[in-house]
């Protein structure tokens, strides 16, 4: 490296700058494309129903109105309650899920665990074949007695094959020598997991934890199937109900009489979407700090 010429350094700098320019512009442009619909969603939630129906969604409405939010917040009890349920599901589901799946990923990554391939297949197989809606519903309602139980929204999503494999994939980068030296020092398998592997897996835990949290935050399907009391409805179930009105049209065509003036208007749909997705967006920047560089090295040296 003593022979590196000045010329070389300059060239290195030039091409690096070119790369930087490409990176900044393409990331910036793509971010704009991603921001656009969201911005449209926010501005439309302030539009009047008539303007939306007659002229479509707009980034710059002629007239701003907060009537959709007034409608949503006129009875905040429901909304506050739904937030509580969703936050509870997200926190409990993510914590339990992270614990169980990081353990499973750790075990499947231990080379001295003879059946790891069998169990990997055992877990993966469930992503391909499922019994379908009815057996699952009967299991949840009849045998586990989870109808109208908050657990019915947490349990079906708490462990997923995909996240276990992701965990295992991350843990592969932890060098085997670390296990060996720890074992020689007399540490048991669980202690190695708890004191060495987990701290080294913070970026992995952050990633899977983020995915889990987003999943629990967005969960509405199981709520739709199993939850009956309005006091246990999560946030996204509200959103889903207000946005998805296709069935209503089918029912009206069948001769069912539904007073459509009571159905949510376009701007209410948008306002609901804003209220329901808003807070979770701030989770990501918060999680980003756990994507820490160079954790592994420090550990080996220390």
């Amino acid at each position: 490296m003593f022979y590196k010429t000045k010329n070389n350094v300059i060239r290195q700098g030039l091409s690096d700058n070119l790369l930087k320019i490409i990176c900044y512009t393409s990331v910036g442009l793509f971010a704009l494309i991603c921001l656009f619909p969201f911005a449209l969603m926010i501005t439309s939630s302030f539009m009047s129903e008539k303007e939306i129906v007659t002229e479509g969604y707009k980034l710059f409405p002629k007239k701003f109105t907060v009537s959709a939010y007034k409608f949503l917040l006129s009875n905040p009890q429901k909304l506050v309650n739904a937030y509580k349920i969703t936050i509870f599901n997200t926190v409990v589901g993510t914590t339990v899920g992270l614990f169980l799946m990081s353990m499973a990923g750790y075990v499947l990554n231990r080379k001295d665990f003879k059946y790891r391939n069998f169990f990997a297949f055992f877990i993966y197989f469930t992503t391909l074949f499922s019994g379908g809606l009815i057996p699952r519903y009967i299991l949840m309602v009849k045998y586990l007695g989870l109808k109208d139980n908050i657990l019915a929204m947490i349990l079906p999503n708490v462990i997923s094959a995909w996240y276990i494999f992701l965990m295992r994939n991350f843990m592969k980068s932890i060098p085997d020598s670390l296990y060996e030296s720890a074992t020689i020092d007399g540490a048991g398998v669980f202690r190695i997991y708890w004191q060495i592997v987990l701290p080294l897996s913070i970026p992995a835990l952050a990633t899977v934890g983020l995915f889990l949290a987003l999943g629990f935050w967005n969960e509405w399907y199981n709520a739709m199937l199993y939850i009956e009391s309005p006091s246990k409805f999560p946030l996204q179930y509200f959103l889903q109900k207000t946005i998805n009105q296709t069935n209503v049209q089918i029912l009206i065509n069948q001769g069912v009489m539904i007073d459509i003036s009571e159905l949510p208007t376009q701007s209410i749909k948008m306002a609901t979407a804003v209220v329901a997705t808003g807070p979770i967006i701030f989770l990501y920047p918060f999680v980003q700090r756990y994507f820490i560089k160079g954790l592994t090295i420090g550990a080996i040296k220390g």
Partner: protein
Amino acid sequence: MNNYKKMLILILVMTFIVATLAGCTGKPNNESTTSENTSSDGTSKNSTNASSDNTSKVDTSKEVHLIYYLWGSEGPANRDILNEINKKLKADINATIEVKYIDWPDVATKYPLLFASGEQFDMAHASSNAVISYFTLAAQGSLTDITDMLDTVVPKLKAEIPKESWKSAEYKGRIYGVPTAYTEFTPYGYVYRRDLKEKYGLDEINSIETMEAYMDAIAKNESFPPLNGNSSDAQNLYRMFVDLTGSWIEAPGIPLSEMHLVAVSPEKYDDIIHPAFTKEFEDWAVMMHEWSSKGYWPKDILSAQQNAKTNFNNGISGGFITHMPDWTGNYGTVKKNMPGVETDFWCFAEKNGKIKRKLGVENITIISANSKNPERALMAIEKFMTEEEYYRLIQYGIEGRQYEIVDGIARKPEKFNPDVDAGGFAAWALRNDRFNIPYDTEDPRRYELIKKWSKVAIDNPYVGFSFDSTSISSELAAIANVNSQLGVQIMLGKTADPKKAVEEYRNQLKQAGIEKVIEEVKRQLKDFTPINIGN
């Protein structure tokens, strides 16, 4: 070698799991069959008991709690209304009811699951048109046979509801639910604006020609099309075609939500055809193509998001196609959104005398086969349908809070606050003409038309006929696909050459097995005699 071992273990584990499961799932099946047996035993025991001693009433000394499933969602005041109802029910029949709701967007998923899972409940709303039909439920044994109980437990209810309605609820000669006692007519028609008609000096719409004149005027002079709809209008135009053509009448077989079969006339109810194979259909296809190219509906109608009714209510459609109750029910919205605008309705089926009475079975209250107290559930239904105080509570709410009556018309009270007072139940199956009060949000013409049509209406010849589609389910699925593709395109004039498209549509229908379906319908109709033939 290693792989073999692995597979062996896997197979072992799988067989083990399957074996345990067969055990697990076997059990509930047995249970459900036994419970079914006991329940049917129970009912027959009851009926024999009662018939041997006609004067004795059902033993109501034990308080029971009934679970009632309805569509819709819970309003803030629903609990209060239910409390009022339960006070009365407790005193009269020593029972209370709890309403559980299946919200509109969830009906398609949750309603079939309710029955598929064998859940414990007592009463539910049902319909012959529901995602899972009343007749399917009856055939599967999900419902309690109430035929005998009607005489012994609720004779008053039996007398209250017209014979034809009871007949429409029969499955293989037995009755499994209580049909509505409310006269309904849901013929389709074109809703249009009277002010625009007058603006262009046009005649009232009562034929294709007058409708074309109106549509032409709108398409040429206004900034919006006369039918600013979406793909659902394909089905509406198909209904229009069937209603306007001769004595054709819709027939069972293919679901009525798609391009279905017809009988050539109510009398020749067993002469089943698919309209696609007629000259009339070809002419209609050509006309639809013409209408489309004249701009009667938007170019992108197949992908448009809003339906014509929504657009109409916001002043950007010249009209929309719907059924009469939907038109008259839209009265309040039009009054609010477009002050001064009056609407008129051209009913397609009227001219050829094809207004059909709606079948009672289209709104029916059933009692689950899993109900432990079918008699008490029936008694509750009787109260709702035969006593005005009960009727008012479940249909209108609490007087002075959810409604008040001024000059025989119901309306929301002055101090009505939707955040606290909104409430009500979608218990349409419990309605009864005798107690019905018009709402101020309904076009008063609804009741004039009902009166007028009651005199001229014909009965649906298929009352009491339930079609069993199990043997042709794959043909029906294949036909559904042809209908949703070429069928929809032909109706909305979206094909390059309508005549060729009709030819292709016929071929595809044949390939999908339309002949087998028609044969099957005819075969099943052989053993069926309409009740009102000869009346």
